[in-house]
């Protein structure tokens, strides 16, 4: 194990090298490009024995991965924003064909208007495609979660594809220290995927058949059952991860200072770091506040969310995307999870960091203040519309 200063994109590409991925297919899009450039270099320098298929679109990139995975290869692709939207059709093919593809997603705003800023609209729009979705907070999490995702996706109990999402620029191009495990340690944790394809050459069989309604619904139910096995399988994988690398991954949700809290913030991605700092500050001032970071958004860890937020009266959910529902997408999930709780808390939806706006400590503090005056029928609160004193004006 070595400690290296790496960007989130570099962490993705190091994880791909360590996972001994066999087939990589990708199409360039800002800010994903440095992931695939680094992988191309790994292949060119002989550090990774993979077939790198330079495709003519993201749609084809994912098709290459789905087809290669059907034959039993370990596959990887990465994309962002418009590229992920173009993949949408193939996302369903990957999960429906039970192809354990792992994909790096650099969360970026979708056009129009054009923006390269961080925003979760791209991957939130894919949350109903049968993919496991992880959202990373640090570059260490990026690297670790890619390795974890292969174990989880390829597990016989699961066999579903997984996305490892990282915020554009706040992770993709941010460098920070990352523990990079040795190849031997990773090989022990993640053995090669050999001879486990659904399609076997020479065996007459057809993957993706035409079905009648009676069979179609049964296959959907099977996929749902596999999705339901993700959280229990993830626990086993994370225990092993901890034994192999001496680090914990945190499970589907990561509670922080929620003991005795009456107020809680809920976050995904990099906003978690800043929110944690604000929680510490407010705790010092005597406020009973905590934070729940959601790492796993699909399947939504409903029971874990409910257990972590038990006893909390007021909850503020920060969403880095506007998805045109009654609240932000994550807020809607949290509200849904708490609807059956014995004491139903007040959940307020905050939109914060859209299109790459900074989620500053000041913004988070204002959100907490706003929580105190919130009511049950609050619509989403747009936090990004006022200039922030501590925000650096860019461009």
């Amino acid at each position: 194990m070595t400690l290296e200063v790496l960007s989130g994109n570099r962490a993705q590409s190091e994880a791909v090298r360590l996972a001994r991925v066999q087939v990589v297919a990708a199409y360039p899009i800002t800010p994903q490009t440095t992931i695939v450039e680094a992988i191309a270099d790994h292949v060119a320098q002989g550090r990774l024995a993979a077939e790198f298929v330079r495709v003519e679109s993201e749609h084809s990139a994912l098709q290459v991965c789905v087809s290669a995975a059907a034959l039993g290869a370990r596959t990887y692709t990465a994309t962002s924003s418009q590229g992920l939207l173009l993949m949408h059709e193939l996302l369903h093919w990957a999960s429906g064909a039970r192809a354990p593809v792992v994909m790096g997603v650099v969360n970026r705003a979708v056009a129009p208007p054009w923006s390269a800023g961080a925003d979760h609209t791209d991957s939130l729009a894919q949350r109903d495609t049968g993919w496991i979705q992880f959202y990373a907070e640090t570059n260490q999490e990026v690297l670790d979660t890619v390795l974890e995702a292969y174990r989880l996706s390829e597990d016989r109990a699961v066999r579903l594809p997984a996305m490892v999402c990282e915020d554009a620029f706040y992770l993709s191009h941010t460098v920070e220290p990352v523990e990079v495990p040795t190849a031997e340690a990773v090989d022990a944790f993640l053995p090669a995927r050999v001879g486990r394809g659904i399609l076997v050459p020479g065996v007459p069989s057809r993957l993706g058949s035409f079905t009648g309604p009676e069979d179609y619904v049964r296959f959907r139910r099977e996929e749902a059952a596999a999705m339901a096995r993700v959280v229990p399988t993830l626990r086993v994988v994370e225990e092993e991860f901890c034994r192999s690398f001496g680090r914990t991954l945190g499970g589907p949700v990561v509670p922080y200072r929620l003991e005795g809290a009456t107020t809680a913030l809920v976050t995904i991605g990099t906003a978690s770091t800043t929110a944690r700092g604000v929680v510490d500050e407010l705790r010092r001032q005597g406020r009973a506040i905590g934070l729940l970071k959601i790492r796993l958004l699909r399947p939504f860890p409903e029971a874990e969310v409910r257990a972590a937020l038990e006893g909390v009266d007021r909850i503020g959910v920060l969403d880095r995307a506007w998805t045109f529902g009654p609240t932000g997408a994550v807020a809607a999930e949290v509200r849904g999870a708490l609807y059956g709780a014995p004491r139903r808390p007040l959940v307020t939806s905050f939109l914060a960091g859209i299109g790459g706006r900074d989620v500053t400590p000041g913004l988070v503090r204002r959100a907490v203040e706003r929580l105190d005056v919130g009511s049950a029928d609050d619509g989403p609160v747009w936090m990004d519309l006022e200039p922030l004193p501590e925000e650096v004006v860019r461009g």
Partner: protein
Amino acid sequence: MMEIRFWGRGGQGAVLAAELLAQAAFLDGKVPQSFPFFGVERRGAPVTAYARVSDRPIEVRTSIATPDVVVVLEHGLLATMPTTDGLREGGTVLVNARADDPGLVAPPSARLATVDADRIALELGLGTAATPIVNTAVLGALVRVTGVVSPIALDRAIERVVPARPSENLAACHAGYAGVLVRTTEVPVPTPRPSPRAPPLPEGPLATIPSDVLRTASWRTRRPEIRLERCTRCNFCWKFCPDTAIALDALGFPQLIAEHCKGCGICAAVCPPKTIAMVAEGSEGP
């Protein structure tokens, strides 16, 4: 409300028959609903369509599991498909067949009606010998035996909706109306099919059973008769069969795999000495 289930083959007009009935019911001031079952539609493959006719708004949108009337546009389907499953007590089965067709079966309490719509259609030049278009003749018969819509409304619907040859189709409808026979004698009861238990699923949607368990012979309206005495064993029939339904024996003579032949007629067309003839299914041959 009367619920009617149509069975036919791709190309025979079963879907249009259900729609025509709906148009006619509308002209009668009733509330109609009709729709096809959207499965694998192939020329010659079995298709189903549904029609409901009611005096009040119809508050259901499903396929018809317990029909009052079953209409079978091709008599071979009566025995090979679950045509009469769920037929209500005392319901009607209307079959495009001659009254003396030996293949007629019906549930014990059913009324069985027959109309020789093939003959009517061919006499009026509707469709071809291989695929006569029988829907309007059968609808005429249906109106006569069920009264589901008025004859005049059916005439108007045919004039409005039928895409080609309206006068021949009207004539076919009237001939069907006049020519339908309701069977009073006992008919054999179909043996109930065991309902198949769903086998366990593979990990993904992976199909592994060879398709030759499927019997496509029921698609056929004509079949090849091979007269081996003039066969030169050129194997053209084997070579060009799209259904792999001709095998060659040890001496090189062709043998029809009848359960898979769809009756396309390619083997007869490509046979150099013309030793293969296409004959109507059910006939004794030339």
